[in-house]
């Protein structure tokens, strides 16, 4: 069974929700969880919930990097922070993968400090999953978008590598035999988007064994045209935040409408079960977290606001990724490039 190191102190609701998530995972799976953080705090939380101690170990460290801290300064000064210790334990082979809901910048820096990139990979990419429409039965309801912030600008080769990494991850985790891979661009024509995107498009078309469907535009993101969407970090981050912001606005608008008129309120109440299903679909806690791809060790970065359910699912995703050999799959895909 894989061992997953979990940064117990990282996240808006850490350590409470992180530890509860680990407790749930210990009852539902055979995955070994290695909690890194303040032992006394962790045990006090475990004492209050149902858990299976046989699948949980604790590695004590007292330092924590806060969500609002400057990542560079914190990583430099807090050498025994939970995220750094967790990453080190993975790098030394005491665990197979890392899950953190903590400060994203610190997580990326910790990974850069302890993990090597897969041979041939030029830059690691932070991926994120988001819900969208499906076009055919059996299509995954979540699409993978990368990079969403590990890089700012990329060249064509790096985008091609992102596509290969995303393709391998989707094949293993989503179990989509041949995921549709697309480049996010300002037009569907292969001449659009400037030299980098044109060049990347040309290279991706030549890769055998990858279902490259060309460019997609922003309005296609919510449709099922692609399963893996590739872009550089600056653009990916803007898209991700836009999607999150839109979801919040829709919920807010519905609330306002309900307050405006009783008939609208009645209509919303009748649609409640439908909204419930929509909420389940868009609930980040259902998919746990997103991977940092391109490193020799699997890292799942969970949302900062992760609750116990999100952490439990992040552990399951990490366990699945380790069992199914996601990093090996990426490695062999990059070798073939």
């Amino acid at each position: 069974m894989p061992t997953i190191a979990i940064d117990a102190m990282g996240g808006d609701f850490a350590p409470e929700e992180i530890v509860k998530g680990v407790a749930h995972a210990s009852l539902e799976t055979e995955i070994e969880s290695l909690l890194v953080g303040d032992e006394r705090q962790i045990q006090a939380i475990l004492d209050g919930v149902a858990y299976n101690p046989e699948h949980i170990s604790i590695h004590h460290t007292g330092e924590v990097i806060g969500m609002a801290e400057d990542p560079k300064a914190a990583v430099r000064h807090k050498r025994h922070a939970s995220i750094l210790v967790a990453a080190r334990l993975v790098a030394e082979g005491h665990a197979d993968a890392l899950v953190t809901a903590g400060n994203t910048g610190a997580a990326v820096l910790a990974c850069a400090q302890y993990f090597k990139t897969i041979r041939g990979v030029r830059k690691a990419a932070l991926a994120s999953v988001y819900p969208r429409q499906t076009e055919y039965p059996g299509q995954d309801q979540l699409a993978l978008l990368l990079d969403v912030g590990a890089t700012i600008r990329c060249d064509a080769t790096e985008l091609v590598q992102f596509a290969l990494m995303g393709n391998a991850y989707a094949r293993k985790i989503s179990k989509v035999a041949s995921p549709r891979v697309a480049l996010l661009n300002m037009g569907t024509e292969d001449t659009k988007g400037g030299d980098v995107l044109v060049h990347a498009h040309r290279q991706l078309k030549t890769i055998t064994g990858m279902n490259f469907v060309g460019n997609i535009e922003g309005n296609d993101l919510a449709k099922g045209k692609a399963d893996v969407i590739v872009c550089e970090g600056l653009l990916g981050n803007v898209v991700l935040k836009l999607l999150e912001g839109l979801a919040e606005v829709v919920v807010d608008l519905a609330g306002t409408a309900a307050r405006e008129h009783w008939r609208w309120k009645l209509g919303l109440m009748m649609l409640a079960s439908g909204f419930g299903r929509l909420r389940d679909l868009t609930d980040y806690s259902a998919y746990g977290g997103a991977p940092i791809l391109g490193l020799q060790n699997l890292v799942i970065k969970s949302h900062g606001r992760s609750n116990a359910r999100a952490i439990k699912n992040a552990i399951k995703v990490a366990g699945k990724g380790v069992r199914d050999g996601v990093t090996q799959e990426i490695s062999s895909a990059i070798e073939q490039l």
Partner: protein
Amino acid sequence: MSAMRRNKSRAPKPPRPVVYRWDLDKTYLRSDFDSLRELVRIPFEKPEDKVAVPGVAPLIRNLRKTATDRGRTVRVFFISASPPQISKAIKEKLTLDGIEYDGIVFKNQLHYLVRGKFRGLREQVGFKLTELLKSHRDVPADSEELLFGDDWESDPLIYSLYADIVAGRIQNEELGQVLRAIGVDPPLVVAAQDLCTDMQCSDVVAKIFINLERRTPPTNFRSFGTRLVPAFNYFQTAACLYDSGHLTLDAVAEVATSLVTGSSYTPLRLANSLADIVRRGHLREPSAAAVRHHLSPLGLMPQRQRPAAQPPWWQRVLSWFTSTPEEQPVADQAIDYQALVTQWRVTR
């Protein structure tokens, strides 16, 4: 004459007899009566079909052996809320497992069925408490007692009540109030009070071990005090019993081996269990270290150790500034049973 008297007073005191009292269902046997179908199947089960909780059989065998080797008189009793109609299969199962016992009590469910007292079928407190008190009269007054139950029914409450009654901490009047609050059959309340009258009181119950078969959060048992040890598996129980001198390290190793060979436990799972019971304050670190040291060469502990984030001395210094203050162990206070019954009923 005076020399003879001096010699007599110097003669070594015989070791205290020890009594182990075990619940049967969910503590010894992995009885599945979660559904009606499973409940109906139980009477028809053959002894070889019955499954013991992992590690329990070698634990009981070694408790008897260790006590005997140390010259202690030992008695093992079982108490079960199952009807006597299935006693034959259970007794044969115990024999199959090599368990020697000195007594076994079953609940006469038919008695309640005939009287139409269906509530009595489920109510265990009155039945078990009176049976424990009856059995207590038959063992030497200076015996040390250890009780084993589970978190399915009311074992923590029954055992704690029993321990405090025999220690003289609960008087008849309070006992009556508590049992009535629980809803015990009135004749059983009277019977329990009668058994308490003229009892030679002594604080004989050393520990109560509760097998967390349902994974009940350990905090739920805090009100029962440190005498009660909630344990997630019988390796944790065995380690605690080594700590208290009731088992040898070889016996702990035998329990661990049975878990690894018979129940797909791994050295890592055993190590995690050991660390958990230490963190919860029921096992002292030197004893845990001795267990680790003994089990490692046998391949029952992980060979590779994780390095500490910082040297231990530095961790201790850092923890003064960065960690939450450690809870100081508090001396056990008398259990407020009235409050406990209310709280216990809510959590059930």
